[in-house]
């Protein structure tokens, strides 16, 4: 195995030569070992500690859900006029985080950004767990959890009733469940070859059976690879518009209404940009420590981190663009309530939330203009935390300030979160991290096959001269 700490600065650009995506002189076998080590070696004590913490927070989350279901949604701070309090804020927050994985696997794949291979698995897993967290909130927000199935068009002779397909909330049901389903099978499809690797390496009979079943008898046959690659391309082509649609539809929940501050046509792309932004923020939050803990510096190079930082900068600026457009149009549109809504956001009773949002989302990523910031792990970790906070507050600002101050001054009110609200927000992180830690422990957290296919060739081929024959020549159109 190559030395981990071989010094190559991958962030230096040489326009003629592409920076290698894997450093450290690895060959195929050592990549396998580097990744499988995480699953095969003795579990570090840190994992147990983290898991214990996450699982207990998760326990609290479940307890709170139980309390909520038993008692009713009155345990939340939701009130009149702020009917949508923390639950929706948390929902949109988590759905947003759930955008990065599919975006990395699909859109970056389409754009042939090969650096995605080192981080896509990781991000996809994060996506799925975030969507799990997101899905819980609307489900418990309906109050009577046991009739959740009414949201789906299931035929019933009792009521002969069907969901109202003209409601954006129902579109959400379809969008989020489709997104969850497609993300899971996309993620799983990507893992099949890696699970086969784990299967072929393990001697533990139980794990072998489990991995055998999960890898579906994958052999790595060229014919299978051919279809597999086509399938992967098709998945990417499907997931790219899907990932756009999800947050677009989440934005419709707000934007189709007439509440001042919600009814803004830029919401769809703005929400998508925000989602990508928060998703990449979370990717960075998780990746920086994971890279350190598991010694993945050779696969997840500084170049990878720098690229993520750049995406954060771009999407953060897009969000800033949307904030600016909203403000400008709020004035330009000439609608007094709309204008008031935006002034109220910035200078009303929730001014602090607005300024947390702007400073975290728009200002803090501007540090990534400087290369120093893009290449200092601790700093990007800190900024990524800011991004997470800022994006949560963005949803808070949108949801709460608009509801608290709508058209009628007589219906104005304030939102006061309860302890249960805070507990559930924290608890959802417990769910997220519990799932994530389990995945890190038992699943292949780096897409080994994909990394192998984009890494520099480790061997001097004995048939180098003949290679040109096999490689199709550049054909003139």
């Amino acid at each position, binding site marked *: 195995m190559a030395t981990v700490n071989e010094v190559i600065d991958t962030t230096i650009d040489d326009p003629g030569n592409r920076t290698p995506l894997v450093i450290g002189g690895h060959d*195929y076998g050592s990549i396998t070992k580097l990744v499988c080590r995480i699953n095969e070696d003795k579990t570090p004590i840190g994992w147990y500690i983290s898991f214990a913490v996450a699982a207990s927070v998760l326990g609290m989350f479940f307890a709170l859900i139980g309390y909520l279901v038993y008692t009713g949604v009155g345990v939340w701070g939701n009130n009149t006029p702020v009917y949508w309090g923390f639950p929706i804020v948390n929902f949109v927050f988590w759905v947003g985080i759930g955008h990065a994985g599919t975006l990395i696997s699909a859109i970056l794949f389409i754009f042939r950004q090969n650096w995605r291979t080192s981080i896509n698995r990781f991000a996809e897993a994060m996506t799925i767990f975030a969507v799990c967290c997101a899905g819980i909130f609307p489900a418990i927000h309906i109050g009577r959890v046991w009739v959740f199935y009414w949201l789906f*068009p299931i035929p019933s002779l009792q009521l002969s009733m069907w969901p109202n*397909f003209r409601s954006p909330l129902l579109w959400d049901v379809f969008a989020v469940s489709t997104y969850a389903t*497609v993300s899971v099978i996309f993620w799983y499809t990507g893992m099949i070859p890696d699970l086969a690797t784990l299967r072929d390496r393990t001697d533990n009979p139980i794990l072998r059976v489990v991995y055998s079943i999960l890898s579906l008898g994958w052999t790595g046959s060229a014919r299978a690879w051919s279809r597999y690659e086509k399938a992967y391309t*098709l998945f990417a082509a499907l997931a790219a518009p899907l990932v756009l649609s999800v947050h677009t539809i989440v934005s419709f929940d707000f934007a189709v209404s007439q509440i001042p501050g919600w009814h803004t046509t830029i919401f769809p792309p703005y929400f998508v940009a925000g989602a990508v932004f928060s998703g990449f923020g979370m990717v960075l939050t998780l990746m920086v420590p994971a890279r350190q803990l598991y010694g993945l510096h050779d696969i997840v190079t500084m170049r990878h981190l720098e690229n993520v930082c750049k995406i954060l900068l771009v999407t953060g600026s897009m969000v800033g663009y949307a904030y600016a457009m909203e403000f400008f149009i709020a004035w330009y549109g000439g609608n007094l309530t709309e204008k008031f809504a935006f002034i109220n956001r910035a200078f009303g009773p929730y001014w602090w939330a607005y300024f947390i949002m702007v400073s975290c989302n728009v200002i803090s990523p501007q540090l990534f203009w400087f290369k120093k910031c893009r290449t200092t792990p601790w700093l990007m970790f800190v900024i990524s935390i800011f991004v997470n906070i800022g994006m949560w507050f963005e949803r808070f600002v949108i949801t709460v300030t608009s509801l608290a101050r709508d058209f009628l001054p007589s219906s104005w009110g304030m939102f006061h979160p309860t302890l249960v609200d805070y507990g559930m927000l924290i608890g959802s992180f417990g769910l997220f991290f519990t799932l994530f830690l389990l995945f890190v422990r038992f699943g292949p957290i780096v897409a080994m096959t994909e990394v192998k*296919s984009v890494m520099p060739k480790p061997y001097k081929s004995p048939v180098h001269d003949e290679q040109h024959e096999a490689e199709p020549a550049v054909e003139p159109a």
Partner: protein
Amino acid sequence: MAQDSNNSEPKQIGLLVQFDDPDSLLVACDKVRKAGYTKTDAYTPFPLHGIDEALGIKPTKLPWIVLTLGIIGGTVGLLLQYTTNAEFYPFIISAKPRFSLPANIPVIFELTILHSAFAVFFGMLLLNKLPMFSNPLFRVPEFARATDDKFFLAIDVTDDKYKPNKTKEMFEGFVGQTGVIDVFEDPSPNELPVVIKYIGICLAVAAIIPPLILWSALNSTSGAPRINPIRDMDIQLRADTQTQSTEFQGRPSVFPDGRAMRPRIPGTVARGEWTDPVLLTGIVPETAEKNVIFLQDEEPAKENAEKPAEEPKAEDKPAADKPAEEKPADAKPMDEKPADAKPEEAKPEEGAAPTPPAEPEPNWVKFVPIEVTSETIKRGQNRFNIYCSVCHGYAGEGDGLVSRRAFELIDQATPGMAWLPPTNLHTDAVIQQPDGKIFHTITHGIRKMKGYGDQIPPEDRWAIVTYVRALQKTRTGTPDEIPAIKMKELELKGQ
């Protein structure tokens, strides 16, 4: 390399050659294809570009499957929304039409994607014949590295070009090969274990039980109330008509006596329910100053009384029960003021014969104190048929079905029968009663008959009186009492 098993003649099914680098594999693949082998396959830890051409793998049909299913998904989305929202459950909400395309596009889009994604996943598995858990290649120890860092080329012995030694020689001659391995057939059993078959049969048999339960549930009754798995708001904290307000969910009942509503306070009249006492009693109050007294209800109100119980003046009550009183009343004073539209039962205009009341007799109303039209009589007929005909019979001859049944029972010597034949309404005694008297009888009963005052509202009772009069007229009337115009109509009908 060789199979280290001690199986009796393991059957060779293929040949594997191992490489350490992908380029050598690509070259070998190219050579094998050019040599005319078709049943070949390569095994690599990651997808190798160029191997499709080298091995001659044709492009997959997968995109077509996906396109087809995607179109199906979109159509399903469209039809789902159209049928459910515009056909099955048509419903206008927020001023949007039952079916409007813009609002339906998101779901169409999502379902298109969902179906396409399923097509990609399951189509890929199906085309690759996965899952396939048992594979003879897995028995080759070296093959475990096909998912790690080794590259393999395999050939099936059933290939037309396969010659045991020649092919092996060719394989051994590949540049960069690091081993040629024979692949043998898997010796493990190929037949399904019997126990699986038995489990399958048991499951199939068990599957008959739920339909049987359903069938019996469909065709039987039960003493247990309706099954409602979700009883959320079935029972609410409120008092419905005719319910007890007993303890509910640990809360005390509304009223200590368990009633959900309060009875009326005796002697009060609800707002808007004041009615002319004449209408309620059938008695013209000669002693006008006593008007108020009848309102005072000595008895507690019957449950659900919807009107103040109308009681005759206290002094009237004993009188009404005296059998002697029903005889006198001679004339049949019918006052039909607006008798325009009258069927054949119409009475001729006749001066109301003043009836000198017997001393103890109250001052009975001699005419129906409500407006009488044919509608009133029809209403009376309807009410009569509901309440009176059960005993008095539809024609009023005292031969109602209940009465007949009672006599049947008496004939069968059933114990506890205390039945008397109901009055025939066509007897002179009844005919001669003033209207007020008949009304009174309906209200309070007479002799062995119980009163229907609580069951029938006063207007209806008066309507019944008119109908009784009409019934009587069918027996006493003469053709010349029929108005000429009606007569003509009847003649036209051929009667």
